[in-house]
């Protein structure tokens, strides 16, 4: 998200905060939020070289969201007639955006000129037909929910596996009459899909387990594409978000002040500190150029701080803007580099993602492994679950060997940390002496924090670079070899 987009969102949110005291606003609020979020899906989408794709991907986001609601809603909620105005609004906005092709040759809300009207009408008709067909399915039948999850994962794989992205790009280019030889993995960048997909999968799984609250189409769509959290999260839980959405209290001075504090802090972290650090943080270009061990450590530290400030800065911005809209989104970072072990680090780093994986992957997997006829020993269950979870988190960033190694690095680290904690717990005195407590406070805590920080920092070497040999070269240089 650019600084301009951020400031426009902030101004819009502040305007809504001021309007929240008017009588009519309570009724209009959700409509305004939905319209703003739909428009933001198009506005934030980056320009793509494949003709029309930067219009089709946001449109697909909206349709997937509607299909998601139809799949997860109960017959009572699925009253299409009651939700028809919302559906009409979404389809109408898509149509309105498509019509801007007749006003501007470059695109007004879209990064390029929208496709021809006939194509858009066919897309809308096909989408409406699909909505109708999905609504005929047996409500919330598990098979269809699994099928939907598989579809989302397929999109994920296409987007995150560079070879497959390039292949699909080649097909799309051919279909568009463009040169397929120019296909690249960068041709298909789908704004916010990662986060929307997490929320979609969460609602599908919650529907399967019966935990999903009753929501209208309007509420469901706002939850999925809420504009402050569209591009970088956090990944809120639906029941918590819907509670805020249904609270129509006017925004208080305290909320504006707190939102302002978070917003300004976020701007400073992202657009000043992180962007400055990015100039000398470890990256594919400088990894091969830096000549000394000392400067290599500087670049790794810079990257370590940059990724935190960048990501947590965006989160602060999202939380600040949301607060002005009357929402309290969950925290995503709580001083993660000041923790004494890796488990604590992951409890405080990208918290909503970690919670998501714990709820929808780690816990079900652990339960499954323990409930087999011949249950695995607990140690093996921990090892398997931690490594698989962390590798999956790695793959979420991109399907490359470096992300696999980064995930495994943390998976192994968490397992070792788990075993070490168990070992120490058994040997720790029930009542530590004052001397032992002093040693723990003044030596143990700083050393543990420093070791954890460096383990995480070294992990970023795998994360930041595109290839294993380059990462190994950097690690060698960090330790004086190579």
């Amino acid at each position, binding site marked *: 998200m650019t600084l301009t987009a951020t400031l426009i969102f902030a101004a819009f949110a502040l305007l809504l905060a001021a309007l929240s005291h008017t009588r009519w606003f309570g009724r209009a609020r959700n409509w305004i939020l939905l319209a703003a979020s739909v428009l933001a899906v198009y506005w934030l989408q980056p320009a793509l070289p494949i003709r029309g794709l930067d219009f089709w991907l946001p449109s697909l986001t909206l349709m997937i969201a509607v299909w998601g609601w139809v799949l997860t809603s109960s017959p009572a909620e699925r009253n299409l007639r009651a939700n028809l105005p919302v559906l009409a609004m979404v389809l109408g906005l898509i149509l309105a955006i498509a019509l801007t092709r007749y006003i501007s040759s470059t695109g007004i809300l879209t990064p390029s000129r929208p496709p021809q009207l006939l194509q858009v009408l066919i897309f809308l008709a096909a989408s409406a037909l699909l909505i109708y067909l999905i609504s005929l399915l047996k409500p919330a039948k598990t098979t269809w929910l699994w099928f939907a999850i598989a579809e989302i994962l397929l999109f994920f794989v296409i987007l995150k596996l560079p070879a497959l992205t390039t292949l699909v790009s080649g097909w799309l280019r051919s279909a568009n009459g463009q040169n397929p030889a120019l296909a690249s993995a960068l041709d298909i960048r789908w704004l916010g899909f990662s986060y929307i997909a997490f929320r979609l999968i969460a609602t599908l799984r919650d529907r399967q387990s019966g935990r999903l609250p009753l929501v209208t189409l309007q509420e469901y769509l706002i939850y999925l594409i809420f504009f402050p959290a569209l591009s970088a999260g956090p990944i809120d839980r639906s029941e918590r978000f819907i509670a805020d959405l249904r609270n129509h209290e006017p925004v*208080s001075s305290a*909320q*504006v002040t707190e939102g302002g504090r978070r917003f300004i802090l976020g701007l400073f972290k992202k657009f000043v500190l992180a962007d400055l650090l990015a*100039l000398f943080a470890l990256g594919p270009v400088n990894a091969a150029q830096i000549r000394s061990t000392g400067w290599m450590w500087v670049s790794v530290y810079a990257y370590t701080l940059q990724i935190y400030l960048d990501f947590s800065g965006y989160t602060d911005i999202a939380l600040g803007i949301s607060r002005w809209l009357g929402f309290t989104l969950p925290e995503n970072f709580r001083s993660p580099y000041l923790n004494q072990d890796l488990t604590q680090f992951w409890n405080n780093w990208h918290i909503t993602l970690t919670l998501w994986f714990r709820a929808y992957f780690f816990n079900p997997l652990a339960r499954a492994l323990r409930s087999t006829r011949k249950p695995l020993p607990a140690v093996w269950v921990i090892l398997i679950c931690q490594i698989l979870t962390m590798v999956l988190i790695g793959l979420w960033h991109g399907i490359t060997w470096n992300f696999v190694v980064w995930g495994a690095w943390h998976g192994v680290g968490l397992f070792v940390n788990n075993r070490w904690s168990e070992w120490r717990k058994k040997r720790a005195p029930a009542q530590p002496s004052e001397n032992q407590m002093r040693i723990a406070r003044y030596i143990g805590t700083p050393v543990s924090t420093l070791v954890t920080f460096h383990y995480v920092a070294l992990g970023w070497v795998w994360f930041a670079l595109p290839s294993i040999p380059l990462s190994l070269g950097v690690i060698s240089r960090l330790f004086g070899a190579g």
Partner: protein
Amino acid sequence: MNGRFLRNVLLKGLGIFIILNLLWTVVDSPKLGTLSLYDHLFRGRERFPYGENSVESYNLSLNNIYAMFESLRLDAVEVPVNEFRVLVIGDSSTWGTLLRPEETLAGQLDALNLSTSDGRRVRFYNLGYPTLSLTKDLMILDEGMDYMPDLILWPVTLESFPRNRQLDSPIAANNLGRIQSLQQEYGLDLTIPADSRTPLQRFYARTIVGQRRALADLLRLQVYGAMWSATGIDQVYPAEYTPAARDLEPDATFNGWQGPNLDESQISLDVLQAGIQMAGSIPVVLINEPVLVSSGKNSDIRYNFYYPRWAYDDYRRILSDRSASRGWNYIDLWNAVPQERFTNSAIHLDPAGVSLEVKSLLPQIEGYWR
């Protein structure tokens, strides 16, 4: 929250913003360039910051002469007692396009570890800047004089001389105030465009908002110091580049002039005179830098992409005659380097080409410190 609270927050924020901008207009902001992390936290650069590909070269082009000098390893406060200081000014061939800092003219001369007869180390500093304008060179020399040189080497080429192109270089165009001062002091024959901005536009240009680009450049220059220190890279060195043309167009014009002779009033010999006058008792050595002498198609008309034969021959004659009549120290190295040693331009040399230039130059300048 009520509307009054929000209004107050916005008004106070706007007030602070306006006050800060007003205060900033009284700050001599170009002087901020003298604040530098180079030579303190980061090692000083070997040549001026210049470049467009910041991501790969950790470098940028900026217009603040103070900041450019402060980023160098050159210390203005005190010259070490055991140092004989030589400043090398000039264009991109001095700066060293496609050359590493140690491969440039100044870099190779410095690597020779030369000493004066009284044992002082002869240190060469690269003050070249990659645009072709003698006035730009003069402006850099003006600032360089604060660095107390013992000798000045000034490689030049005809392309830097046309009077009508003296201010084309962005760094000259963005420092017209400095150039105006030089014009007044040395009576330079230059037409400096009048400032057509309204008083309000001039005032706006002095605010923080008006100077945001220059301020951001200053900050970026400091931050890139980290990667310069870490990598020693200040330029992108492509594996392949388009070599300088050897086969030439059958065009006999230079700068729109037909010949057969150059009009001396149209070339900035007065700028050379000003530079020598500026240096005072410090010797200035003018060097006609090597150019590509092509043997390709139409080489009977032109020496290279830049120069038709008539113009370049006449330029050499004029420079030689003027040097003899005014007592300037002049060395002509025009054909000291064979055409194979030129890279992407008729004045850019590869490292071996610079070595040949050094070989020709050194015997002619050693007398200045021996």
